[in-house]
Each structure stands twice: as C-alpha cells, then as structure tokens.
C-alpha cells in the first residue's frame, strides 16, 4: 500500500509539472527479486486511486526476470519460478545475480487539462527528454 501511494504521489507531481491533467496509465518495472507481488500491488493501487479524479487510472506492471550466472559451470542458470535460491542447482556454487530488483516508474500517460502548448517535455530532473508525445 505504501508503495502504491508513493507511485501515485510521483504521478501527480509529474502531471502537475506538465500542466496538470487526469492520469490514464502508469507503467512500472517490477523485478522478480523486488519482493513486490504485482497482483497485490495493483489491488493496492485501485484502493489508492479510488475516489480521486484518477479513479480509472491503470497501473501496468512490466515484469523483469533476474539473470543468474554460475562461475563454476561458466553458464547462465535457469531460475525456477518463484525461487530465490542463490546457489547453482547443478553444483551448489553461489550464483552471480544480475537485475531482478527493479521497482521503477517507467512512464505515464495522462489527459492534459491545458491547451497543446507545444512545449518540449522535461523529465523529473528537469532535463529535456523529448519523449513526450501528443496523441
């Protein structure tokens, strides 16, 4: 629930800094080692946006698997679904785990209140990204 609230807060800040509007969808990268369960997060999200002006806003989860590599076998090892074991299933050597801990807001779409001002988009740090598109 706390995570859903933080995401919503960031969405509102971002939309306000772009002239205001109604949130339609936010995309979130979630790694399998982030300890976040997508279904529960979406459930919490619905509770957070309920009775706000963004009540219909959708949270889309983009799932990221972790890559794990065994230095002894010299190859990447398959991770069974839901397994967190960090040792090689074949030889027992500790695995090098790369990624899978993502919990990142990727982008959001919103219905703008203002006129099409033609101003180039800026991301959260105020740097020009050029990624804003009007549709």
């Amino acid at each position: 629930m706390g995570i859903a609230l933080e995401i919503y807060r960031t969405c509102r800040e971002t939309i306000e800094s772009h002239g205001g509007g109604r949130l339609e969808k936010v995309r979130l990268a979630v790694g399998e080692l982030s300890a976040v369960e997508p279904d529960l997060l979406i459930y919490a999200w619905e509770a957070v946006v309920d009775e706000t002006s963004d009540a219909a806003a959708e949270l889309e989860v983009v799932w990221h698997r972790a890559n794990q590599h065994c230095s002894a076998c010299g190859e990447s090892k398959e991770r069974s679904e839901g397994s967190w074991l960090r040792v090689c299933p074949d030889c027992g050597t500790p695995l090098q785990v790369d990624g899978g801990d993502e919990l990142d807001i990727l982008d959001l779409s919103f219905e703008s209140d203002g006129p099409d001002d033609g101003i180039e988009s800026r991301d959260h740090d105020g740097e020009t990204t050029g990624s804003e598109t009007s549709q």
Partner: protein
Amino acid sequence: MKKVVTVKRRALEANEERAQALRTRFAASKTLVVNLISSPGSGKTTLLEATVQGLGGELTCAVLEGDVATENDADRIRALGVPAHQILTGGGCHLDARQVEGGLADSGLPEVDILFIENVGNLICPTTYDLGEDFKVVVLSVTEGDDKPVKYPAIFSRAEVAIISKSDLLPYVPFKLDSVLSQISSLNPDGETLVTSSLTGEGIDGWLGLLRDRLAAKRRTTT
C-alpha cells in the same frame, strides 16, 4: 489531449533519498545502525534487552521501536536505563526513513555507538524500505516453523545477519535446525547466521562480538 511522459524514477526514490541522508548522518556520528525485522513474537525486544545489558558500560546504545500501537516495547528498554523512543505507525505495517528521521527529531535520543531500530513485526513490507541502516537482521524463532526462509525469501536473502531465536525451546518443537540453516545459506551465501536464546544466553556472546566487530569496521572506514 493525451500526453505520455517518461519518468524513469525508482518507485521508492523519496524513501531512498531520506535513507541516504540518514546514512550520511550516521556515518558522521560513527553510529552503527541495525534494522531488526521479524514476525511479531519472535523475541526481538527480548533479544534487545539481552543485547543492551550485555553491552552496558562498554558501548552506548539507543533503540527506536516501531509498532502499530502502545509504548510497551520502548518502556521495556527504558526500564533498563537505555534511551528508547516509540514510533507508532497507526496501522502501518513497516517503518520508513521519514518515520526514522521524525522519531530521531522528536525523541532527542543522544548520539550513541549503536542504534537499534526494531521494525514493525512483519516479514514482508519492512524488507523493501531502506532506513539508512548498516545492515538488516532477520530474527526467526524456533516456534515459527522450519520452512519460513523459503516462504519469505526476500528478507532472508537481504538480511546480512539471521538470528534463530528461542533455541532453548528446540528440544520441545519439531524444528529442523539443519534444514533452516541450509535454506538460509542457499538464499544468502554471504550472510551470517547465529543461534541464540535470550533466556539461557546461548549465542548472545557471538551476537555481541558481531556488533563490536561491525562497529569497529565502520569506525575504520569513516575515519
């Protein structure tokens, strides 16, 4: 008109920024900060009682207690003459860095050698929130069942130290200690695991030694 904006921001960035500010502050004061996480009733507070008594006179300690309600835990620590402050989350299932900042500001806790943060009893949500600690400790009591590490893998893989508590009860419960130790080492090959009983004192010396070593290491790196 529909607009799409790239955000590319950690979902918990606000918490992470505050946690980093806390970490800088604790580095300046050379305070070792330990974030204790477990289910309710695993014996975190009893372990802390044994810990502050064991370190008394040698190192200064303070405790931040996170609970949904009541001052009970902070009262227990204060009864031992150790400064403690209760953070009441009012229903929240974990502590976040903002609450730790606020708790430190409200409490006027003195600068100490070791600050213990006892998180809200919960093996899930506290795992995700950085509090600016040096390391997390997960406490699992032998009465909770011997399949908990694989059931709650996130905390057991992230906590640098795992403590199996209430070892005095091992003869009375069907708890396969070997299995639990192997689950934990599979989840966290680099972690340390201790078996303790706050009642009999088993393993407490090892725990106190670990705290002394970590504090000494932090003082070396931040000097």
